[in-house]
């Protein structure tokens, strides 16, 4: 690939990011101006000190995604072991594909009634549980290929030497699975972080995550705040990507 094509491709990839960043610091953008007429960091200050509540949405989104990712990763790691070592592993695993038959938003629509009955409709706990329904099976599928005979032998060795199940997890399985656990955690964090339809339907707008804020600002035709909320949504995944690259790069050059 020529240098020019490479630069053109990178430019194309970066265009949406630059465009959203431009709108997030813009104020006046009358037609047919190509760029906003006023530039200001005022919108960004709203995140920190303003009354728009964007800072609260950031915290809420972080708390929700961290909770979903932690719970799903932990539970799916533990459960996937019992599925992977079952003689009818494939049949069990096919159940994990069930949630993907539905689009998440349609799943939420069909489950609304049960969330109302359980008193979870419009609550943080309800949204967390609903997101578990799509992240947990993903985690089980993710870890299903992790368990193998070598790990089983290591686990049995711990027990032969007098160790408990808890010790086998703490001293052997979790350290061995550290990389897979981190990858799964990041992926589940992102699924939760990007979720809109299901969160909106089960949360009834009372759990205003950042994705809901973007939609709210678009509806209010406030493109500058919508762009700002979009930037805030993109920031953590980009940071995770950067971190991942830095770690991989460090591992590659390590002796």
């Amino acid at each position, binding site marked *: 690939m020529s240098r020019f094509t*490479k630069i053109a491709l990178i430019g194309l990839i970066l265009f949406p990011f630059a*465009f959203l960043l431009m709108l997030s610091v813009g104020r006046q953008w009358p037609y*047919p101006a190509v760029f906003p007429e006023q530039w200001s960091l005022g919108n960004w200050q709203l995140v920190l000190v303003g009354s728009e509540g964007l800072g609260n949405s950031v915290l809420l989104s972080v708390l929700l995604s961290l909770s979903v990712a932690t719970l799903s990763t932990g539970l799916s790691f533990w*459960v996937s072991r*019992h*599925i992977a070592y079952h003689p009818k592993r494939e049949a069990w695993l096919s159940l994990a594909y069930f949630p993907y038959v539905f689009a998440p938003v349609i799943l939420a629509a069909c489950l609304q009634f049960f969330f109302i009955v359980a008193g979870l409709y419009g609550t943080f706990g309800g949204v967390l549980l609903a997101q578990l329904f799509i992240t947990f099976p993903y985690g089980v599928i993710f870890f299903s290929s992790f368990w193998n005979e070598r790990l089983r032998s290591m686990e049995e060795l711990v027990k032969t030497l007098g160790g408990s199940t808890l010790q086998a997890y703490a001293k052997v399985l979790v350290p061995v699975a550290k990389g897979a656990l981190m990858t799964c955690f990041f992926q589940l964090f992102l699924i939760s972080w990007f979720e809109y339809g299901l969160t909106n339907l089960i949360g009834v707008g009372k759990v205003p995550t950042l*994705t809901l804020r973007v939609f709210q600002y678009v509806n209010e035709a406030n493109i500058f705040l919508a762009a700002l909320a*979009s930037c805030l*949504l993109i920031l953590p995944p*980009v940071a995770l990507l950067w971190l991942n690259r830095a770690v991989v790069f460090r591992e590659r050059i390590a002796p």
Partner: protein
Amino acid sequence: MQQRWAAYGGRSLFVLLSAVPIVAGVSYALLYSLGLTGVMAEGFTLAHWQEILGDAAFWRTLGFSLYVAAVSILIALGLSLALVLRSPQAFTKGELSFFIYLPLSIPAIVMAFFIFQLLGKGGWLSRVSHQLGLISALEQFPDWVNDNYGIGIIVAHVIMATPFFTIFFANLYQNERLGEYLHLAATLGANGRQRVFRVAVPVLLRRGLATVFLYFMFVMGSYEIPLLVGSQSVQMVSVRTIQRLQRYNLGDIPEAYAISVAYTVLVVVLLSGLLWYNRKQMGRT
């Protein structure tokens, strides 16, 4: 003994969190659509199903969802295969191997907003066209969002799917040692066109069929993008279902649940087809 209970506990939790919600959701939707539950329930009736199945708009919705998914995936596949086959190493080593991941960090709702601001009548491309003298008024810019052909939806999905398939095929190219196959084909006298269309594309598509199909279903059931940049007259399945559920007319709710069940049946049929094809392929090899 303790281990056996842990295994039972683990598997029960698995069923509880993956199968139970789906079975409960589909059962509730089916019962509602048959008039057996819900505020409007008056006993068993097929009226809602008859209404849905006889409604041209419902079939248009299903057809439109299939059309958007098929066109988006075909364009994204074409672009990603062209990129990977042109420079297979570019996406696994060097700067592009990092930059190609960046579009994956854009959520669907942000992509929809971006497309709206880019392709809308008052969007950035319209403004650039005005400055270049290509149009003299906002109305002259073509309808690329909220249009009946789903152009905005397709463009948004192509932008999201192309980097994903590029990464996927670039890794597949390496893992399947496609370079060696292509070299062998060249040694046996295959020209460039034959190497691409007789060797590379069939290998990559056959290996990636399940992923391509799952992405197809993801696009078909997408919600945020058609909600923001889709048309009101021709809707995708998720948007039509949710809008009917959220209307004030309670009579629309059973029909919304009937659409949910019909969509689920369609996806299950498509999935079964994929599994059948996969088994057939495995039987052949």
